[in-house]
């Protein structure tokens, strides 16, 4: 299996996110050169770091961006039927969801936030 080259896509300067608090959900849309669009949410469940998840509840294929963040369990809950996903790794915490949500690695370099789109 050939090792895929890891490419980091720049999102924005970290200061752009200073207005967001822990527990907020930031929806972003990333359009790659190939024309493929990704709808992603950035969530913080502690003061420390951001996590990036697919903006898709795997139960009904609807968006997660209006979901509620549970800080203690670090999970995001889809408002429509109560499905919960772990923010850090996308795993299902509560039904009726079954499949985990895709997550994307993030890194901060020189005050700029990068996301890795190839999983």
């Amino acid at each position: 299996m050939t090792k895929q080259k890891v490419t980091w896509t720049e999102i924005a300067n970290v200061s752009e996110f200073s207005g967001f608090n822990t527990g907020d959900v930031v929806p972003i849309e990333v359009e790659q050169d190939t024309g493929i669009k990704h709808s992603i949410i950035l969530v913080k469940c502690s003061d420390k770091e951001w996590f990036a998840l697919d903006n898709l509840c795997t139960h009904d294929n609807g968006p997660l961006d209006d979901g509620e963040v549970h800080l203690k369990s670090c999970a995001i809950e889809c408002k429509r039927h109560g499905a919960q996903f772990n923010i850090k790794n996308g795993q299902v915490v509560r039904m009726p969801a079954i499949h985990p949500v895709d997550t994307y690695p993030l890194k901060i370099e020189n005050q700029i936030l990068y996301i890795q789109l190839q999983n």
Partner: protein
Amino acid sequence: MAKITIQKKIKTNPFEELSKLLNTPELESVYPHRQMEPWRRFDPAKLLPAFAENLQNGITMSSVKIAESSESGRPALNSAAKWKSVDEIFLQKARNNLKLFKKTEATEFFENFISKSVSDEHLHILKLSKNETCEQIPVIEISPVDENKLHVNIIYIYCEEFSNATINIIKKPGSFDLTILYIFQEKKSRLQLRHLDENNRPSQGVNFLKYHQEDGSISKSGIYNLCNSQSKKVFVESNLRENSSAEFMGIFLGRYSNVDHDFLVNHLESFSKSNLLFKMSVMDDSYGVFWGNADIVAGTRGCEAYQQNKNLILGNHSRVDAIPRLGIHTENVIAAHGSATGEISEEEVFYMMSRGLSYAEARKLLLRGFFEDVLRKSFEHDVDEADAFLERIWKNIQNILGVEISV
């Protein structure tokens, strides 16, 4: 360099934006029966952004013309069939009967939009004259005119009493197509229609096929959606009056495509019969949806409604949704439907491989067999024209699969 948009608030509703653009009231009613879980399946609302974008570039009609269908050089049209140039009295009658095509909530927005965008001079009417049999097969060809604009078409096929014809329609898509095909059949007319959506470029669109059949009329329609990189919503609606019968057969082959087929057959009066056979096969990130609605209204007797749906998933992240529905409001009916979904049988592939075919060839052959019965049904009683059209269909299939299929 990728483009990033940070949305500081929740994404806007595509319906809202389009409402503003078109200055129309709430569009949510366009898909009322989907509001329950609008994202569960390929949501035609996803077509709206492309619709809006093309709309901004302007509206145009496609080029719609009747072509010679046979190589023998005989004219396709004669006294039996008249294209566009029809007398005023007939036009009046035809327009009156347009009212019988009821709009459903789901389709009202697009239908209204189309009728507002198309003036009478752009209305394409094909008249099939009373008591006449059309010897040749008219072929209606629809092709795009301007790559970036929104193509809007209304085509009206009117069959007078006791007329008898076979018509082929070949549509080449533009980047966004809105097409309505009205088919009105007066008493005891017979019509065979074959509708081929060719594939030559990525495109999106919404297509309507609306039928209205008066007493004793018979229709047989073949719908062939062969798609590569296309997203479409196809509505097929049929009103059946007493003793009329409608037969639909269709295939969908999708590659990198999302196509939603919404069939609705209304049995309005007694002894009407319908038979729907639809086969889908999807591959490479495709999404095929089949809605088969048969409605038999209260107070009718002896209606028969059959639906059969078979789906093959050929692999690579594809998905099929099948929703065959029955709405029966009276007891004196025979209504049945069946749907089956699966993959190409490994056993059968093995059987063929053990007789010398390669894996790929075996799968191709089985896929061909899958479509064969539908195509055979569509071309049952034909000679001459059948081969040419069939060949065209197979050629399209080959193009999509990227492989040779020996016909």
